[in-house]
């Protein structure tokens, strides 16, 4: 990168690099990309109020060249945009937005519209709230979130969108709660390449344990009717290191709903069973029912694991012994936990890339320090791929090349290190992902297939 200061000396073959304000090879996108959080809810269509190209860039980045997930019913090229230009900058874009919403209502069949603004509108100060409220007052199911790029990245935008739907669409509620019903706040839809399969598995196992689940996003969500049921749930489950915590805290204030925060998304039977037990304990539902589901799942899981173990125990040509993970904190932590505790691979380097808010970082570090009873590791926070790759180059991975769990940006690096690469996060441009997931009981087996097909396939 042009303005990065690089110093080299003979003693250190790797340049010492000083951090700048530039980012090479992005790992997250603008907050307006949270339009994907809207279109991830069945029947919901986003409307964007931004410059021409903003929405398409976000879509092609997050939902196309990232597992080729597609826009689905109401995302991708369906999304209406004001395509704000000089006129809207100079005279304001409120009227243009009003026209667009009006036209969208005539053309598009949606249960809920979510207006998202970009930098132009937020900078010139369009009163988007008053435009949208005109429609709300007419009974149109529509909400807005001001997601100008300077507000933060698409993780931040996601919580703005969920909050907008809760406050402007779901509304107030003070009635009774239904025991055993849970709202799940977990992976960032679309940005996490495997979110659809993962949320399906999370819903499946929670239901198996005896809970009624509002999964809220993805094909297994009931759409807006499920969102309307949010306030009647017994509790919220935040299943991620930090994303969703603000939403859960807001729901606690708004509806008096408690929340359970579990930072590690479970992969593999050991972690998944422990996860289910925690949730069941918190909700106070029938333990015996949950235990019988766990037993049934474990029986199946360990049969497959037993089959796999012949390969794992005696594959002649060697398997990677150390790993690196580069990616957002949710998958980074979940994978590290699984690889260390259930596969017995040695952690080499973990780098979290989505720029989590500073206040959550120490708690995340603590998770890595206690990754296993007898294994402690650490984690770095870095967004610039240049620095990320330098950090991995400088890591000692022992006498064998590591396996890298990363993104397409790590492809060339893996070649350089003669290691294996499994693309697990944004952007995953060499993965085609439909319903595949890597979490829970079933996802773990799929992940094992992916890891070791990659490993043994490298020698073909």
């Amino acid at each position, binding site marked *: 990168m042009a303005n990065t200061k690089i110093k080299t000396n003979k003693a250190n073959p790797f340049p010492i690099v000083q951090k700048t304000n530039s980012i090479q090879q992005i790992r997250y996108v603008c907050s307006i990309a949270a339009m994907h959080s809207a279109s991830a809810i069945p029947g919901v269509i986003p409307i964007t109020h931004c410059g021409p190209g903003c929405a398409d860039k976000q879509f092609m980045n997050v939902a196309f060249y990232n597992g080729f997930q597609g826009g689905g019913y109401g995302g991708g090229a369906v999304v209406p945009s004001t395509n704000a230009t000089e006129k809207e900058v100079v005279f304001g874009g409120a009227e243009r937005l009003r026209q667009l919403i009006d036209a969208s209502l005539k053309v598009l069949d949606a249960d809920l519209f979510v207006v998202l603004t970009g930098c132009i509108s937020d900078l010139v100060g369009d009163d988007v709230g008053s435009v949208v409220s005109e429609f709300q007052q007419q009974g149109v199911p529509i909400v807005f979130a001001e997601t100008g790029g300077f507000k933060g990245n698409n993780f931040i935008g996601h919580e703005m969108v969920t909050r907008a739907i809760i406050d402007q669409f779901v509304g107030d509620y003070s009635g009774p709660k239904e025991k055993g019903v849970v709202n799940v706040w977990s992976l960032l839809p679309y940005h996490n390449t495997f979110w659809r399969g993962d949320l399906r598995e999370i819903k499946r196992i929670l239901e198996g344990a005896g809970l009624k689940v509002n999964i809220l996003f993805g094909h297994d969500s009931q759409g807006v009717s499920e969102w309307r049921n949010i306030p009647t749930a017994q509790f919220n489950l935040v299943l991620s290191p930090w994303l969703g915590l603000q939403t859960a805290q807001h729901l606690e204030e708004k509806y008096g709903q408690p929340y359970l925060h579990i930072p590690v998304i479970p992969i593999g039977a050991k972690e998944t069973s422990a996860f289910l037990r925690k949730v069941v304990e918190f909700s106070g539902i029938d333990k015996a029912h949950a235990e019988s589901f766990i037993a049934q799942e474990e029986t199946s899981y*360990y049969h497959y694991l*037993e089959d796999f173990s012949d390969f794992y125990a005696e594959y002649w040509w060697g398997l990677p012994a150390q790993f690196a993970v580069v990616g957002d904190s949710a998958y980074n932590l979940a994978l590290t936990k699984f690889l*260390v505790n259930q*596969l017995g691979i*040695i952690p080499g380097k973990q780098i979290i890339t989505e720029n989590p808010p500073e206040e959550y970082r120490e708690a995340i570090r603590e998770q890595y320090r206690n990754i296993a009873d007898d294994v402690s590791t650490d984690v770095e926070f870095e967004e610039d791929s240049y620095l990320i790759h330098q950090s991995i180059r400088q890591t000692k991975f022992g*006498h064998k090349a590591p396996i890298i769990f990363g993104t397409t940006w790590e492809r060339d690096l893996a070649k350089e290190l003669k290691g294996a690469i499994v693309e697990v996060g944004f952007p995953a441009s060499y993965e085609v992902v439909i319903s595949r997931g890597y979490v829970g009981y079933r996802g773990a087996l799929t992940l094992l297939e992916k890891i070791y097909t990659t490993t043994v396939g490298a020698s073909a």
Partner: protein
Amino acid sequence: MLLNTVSCVKLSGRSLRTVGFCYTLASYLAAGLEQEFGVPEVKAPQPYGFAGTDAWIRELARITHREEQAEAYIAKEHARIAPRLAELREKLKGIKGYVATGSAYAHGLIGVLRELGVEVNGSLVFHHDPIYDSHDPRQDSLAHLIDHYGDVSSFTVSNRQQYQFYGLLQRVNPDFIIIRHNGLAPLASRLGIPAAPLGDEHHALGYQGILNLGETILEILAHKKFHQDLAAHVKLPYKKEWLDLKDPFALVKPENTLDTERA
């Protein structure tokens, strides 16, 4: 000259010497070349561990008159691997290993493990040659092992039957096993014991091989978490009565308790 092409094999009868480093597999051909073609075989211990490697190199040096270079090389290599070896010994302190391979190879590997400070109380070798192809005591790999590294208390000669392997592992309860053949590691895995499969049989050879094997063992020990998780959830295909027997060879003995129930 490596014997890796037909033309090399054709020319092998005209060689000055034959040298091998596996007295299970290389010694038959070497003895044939000596007896039928008058090509003397280098008689030395196998080059595993310091003692074997030093002696093997010295013998090669003696017959090729390169004693001085050899001594310099030996000293250099000892010094080169010393720092990492010290670290590996520290990390492998208190670890127990088990070797289940062909005979002469096992003898070599046990030596290397003991150089690394790994405790080896048990080994399963698939055959035993009381007299080697050369009939020369200098190639007695088991004697070399015992003389330099001491006895192996639970030393078994048997083919690799998984049903017997259970009892053998119970005798010594190792932290890992070393294998080169299929069928034994899967059982160990189901008992929570990781295996180091040495697909590349040269992995532990020479000075560098001592370090290589140490690194591999450290990696394999990390796998323990996988195998222990599995072990806690699988049922072995063997009957309790069989697993309870202390003697892995009870089945072939007339006085065993296994027939009583069916009768």
